[in-house]
């Protein structure tokens, strides 16, 4: 037994050594950024799109883009001028959608790859464990898309979150409804329909709380399982209550099911809002976009006016993916990368403490944003206080931006039309 074990261990050891122990700096003078995303598992699609978005970002910084260079200082090409023109090298790792793999990979990127900073890790639970390792090692961790509230409540000094959180979404909806109420539309009777896992539960409860503060009462709250094969009971319940405003927090297959069932039972509210996710999935938009005409949604991405930063980035990205546009998730990853690139450039060093200081001093204007934020500026907890969402509306099978005014490309049309 002893012999077998030892032989096996040694074979494994040799294989591991060959793969894991590489020189700290692979290319001369390139600065390494570790990126942890779900590249396999349930969220692999989202992870792989984000990966491509970051590659677009790195390509723009390293090789430049003439149009973007007029709007963003770092798009001139030739790497980071503040860091001796160092190019950026992205080192990707797969978190497999598990908190354990995320933490193991974070440790590897920090200690073996010697990355200057980390970006990741999509799922809130994975971000939590991966950033804990970065904190212990004193390496900056920039998060682009995890919305769990507790992430910035841990007293961490190396954690920076660029994305808006559920509270920002709730405020965006609430503000939208206030405007509609002022315009004389009925908003008294509000129904909330949410799927019952982490996403639906957490966002749902935040919306209810924020609405209460703003004087909107959520009269009907329906939780359901996203795996359901039939939502007739829920839609019948809605039909009976007949709310003025209906808010969905749903994944893709259930979004499709609700859309079809509402049409079958021929019921629609005056205003229908969907919290991104399923209703923004390209698969949903392509097949059922025409059935939810006038649906209100939120997104971190809005292509905006031609020649704007998001529009230009979107063109490069679409070329890379072969047709898929930037969306809510990939644009937030790309924005996180641009924030880190800016901080590295100002830090003028790969020393963690200097990067941390530069991140703290980040102050990017709305005009340089690829995501629909008002800018980037971190508070003491590392949360971007200028994070925001744009409000969009479905028009002829495509989402157009209707709020805020600066980014809007169209006026809102109500009531909800549906099919």
């Amino acid at each position: 037994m002893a012999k077998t074990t030892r032989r096996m261990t040694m074979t494994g050891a040799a294989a591991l050594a060959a793969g894991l122990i590489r020189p700290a700096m692979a290319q001369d003078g390139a600065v390494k950024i570790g990126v942890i995303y779900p590249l396999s598992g349930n969220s692999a699609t989202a992870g792989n799109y984000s990966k491509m978005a970051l590659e677009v970002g790195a390509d723009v910084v390293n090789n430049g883009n003439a149009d973007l260079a007029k709007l963003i200082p770092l798009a001139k090409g030739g790497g980071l001028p503040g860091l001796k023109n160092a190019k950026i090298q992205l080192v990707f790792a797969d978190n497999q959608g598990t908190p354990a793999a995320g933490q193991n990979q974070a440790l590897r990127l920090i200690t073996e790859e010697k990355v200057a900073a980390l970006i990741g890790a999509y799922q809130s639970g994975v971000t939590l464990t991966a950033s804990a390792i970065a904190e212990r090692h004193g390496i900056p961790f920039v998060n682009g898309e995890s919305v769990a509230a507790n992430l910035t409540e841990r007293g961490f000094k190396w954690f920076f979150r660029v994305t808006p959180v559920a509270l920002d979404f709730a405020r965006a909806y609430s503000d939208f409804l206030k405007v509609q109420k002022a315009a004389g539309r009925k908003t008294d009777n509000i129904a909330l329909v949410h799927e019952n896992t982490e996403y639906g539960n957490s966002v749902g409860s935040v919306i209810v709380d924020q609405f209460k503060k703003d004087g909107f009462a959520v009269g009907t709250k329906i939780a359901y399982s996203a795996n359901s094969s039939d939502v007739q009971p829920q839609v019948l319940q809605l039909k009976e209550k007949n709310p003025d405003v209906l808010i969905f927090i749903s994944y893709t297959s259930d979004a499709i099911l609700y859309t079809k069932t509402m049409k079958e039972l021929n019921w629609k509210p005056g205003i229908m809002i969907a919290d991104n996710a399923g209703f923004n999935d390209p698969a949903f938009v392509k097949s059922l976009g025409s059935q939810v005409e006038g649906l209100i949604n939120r997104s971190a991405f809005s292509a905006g006016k031609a020649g704007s930063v998001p529009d230009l980035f979107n063109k490069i990205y679409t070329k890379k993916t072969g047709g898929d546009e930037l969306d809510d998730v990939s644009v937030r990853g790309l924005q996180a990368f641009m924030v880190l690139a800016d901080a590295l450039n100002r830090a003028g060093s790969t020393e963690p403490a200097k990067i941390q200081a530069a991140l703290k001093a980040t102050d990017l204007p709305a005009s340089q944003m690829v995501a629909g934020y008002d800018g980037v500026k971190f508070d003491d907890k590392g949360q971007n206080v200028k994070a925001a969402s744009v409000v969009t509306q479905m028009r002829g099978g495509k989402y157009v931006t209707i709020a805020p005014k600066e980014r809007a490309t169209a006026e809102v049309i109500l009531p909800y039309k549906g099919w």
Partner: protein
Amino acid sequence: MKRWLLWGVLGALVLAYPLLTEGSAVWQRLGALVLLAAIGASAWNIVGGYAGQVSVGHAVFFGFGAYSAVVVYTHLQWPPIAGAPIGMILSMLVAAAIGVPTLRLAGHYFSMATIAVGELVRVLSSTSDFLGGAQGLGGPAMPRSVFDLSFISAAPFYYIFLAVLTLLLGLTWWIERSRMGFYLRAIKDSERAARSLGVSAGQYKLYAYMLSGAFASLAGSLYLCMFGFVDPESGFGILISVKIVVMAALGGAGQLFGPLVGALILVPLEELSNSLLGGQGAGLTFVVYGAIIVIIARFLPSGLLSLLERRKVTRAD
């Protein structure tokens, strides 16, 4: 004489491992991960290997351990490790509650029942606010005292896991040689024959199941101390149950060191394939991982340790 020397060298290597890998945090951590997985798989081995009752729901106990640790922190501000004994006691009670009705089921039906219970617990846990619901719960973000077991290096974890594994393997070794060990193997070979000879099969299967559950729970608590977070999927997910079974079966179920050997192969393989191939995003990791498991299962159906048995037999000839 030679044999003792071999064991001595091996023991020294195991003890010195964290010092030998001082320069590489990843290697040090890998050692700890192997031991942690070996604790879970060795715990399963008592009921799955020796008694032949193939539970595919050990994540229930693992999850109870992990959640007990994080719950005492969240609700009572205790260090997570203080939840370990609570988890073990709870797991023994749960094992009794699950075991009394399900251990009557023969063979595959028992396995199916354990899967069902596992999934049920996972779904229930995701609706419980006390357990943090679907979002899960995190341990102490910042270490408050040494009892929070929040170390930068993996070496302390390595030695803690090693101590637990040694205790567990010692206990298993003792059971193997005791009356209970003979009973369990008799039940595994033929429960009917064992019963006809006066073995109270139900009782001993239950003992094995409870003991197994307690240690699987301990593995869960230790996991939480190291990783600091658990949600329904990473605590009660079916993948955990499956990994535990695969590890024990690969090394050799029903053999003292079988699960450890399985962990020694699978854990580095998983980490290595993910580190080398994961970043490309082609999903290659699991293809390679799965292929190697299939190859081993094809050529060594009774586990890697059966290689050694075969050699012994040839030598005896």
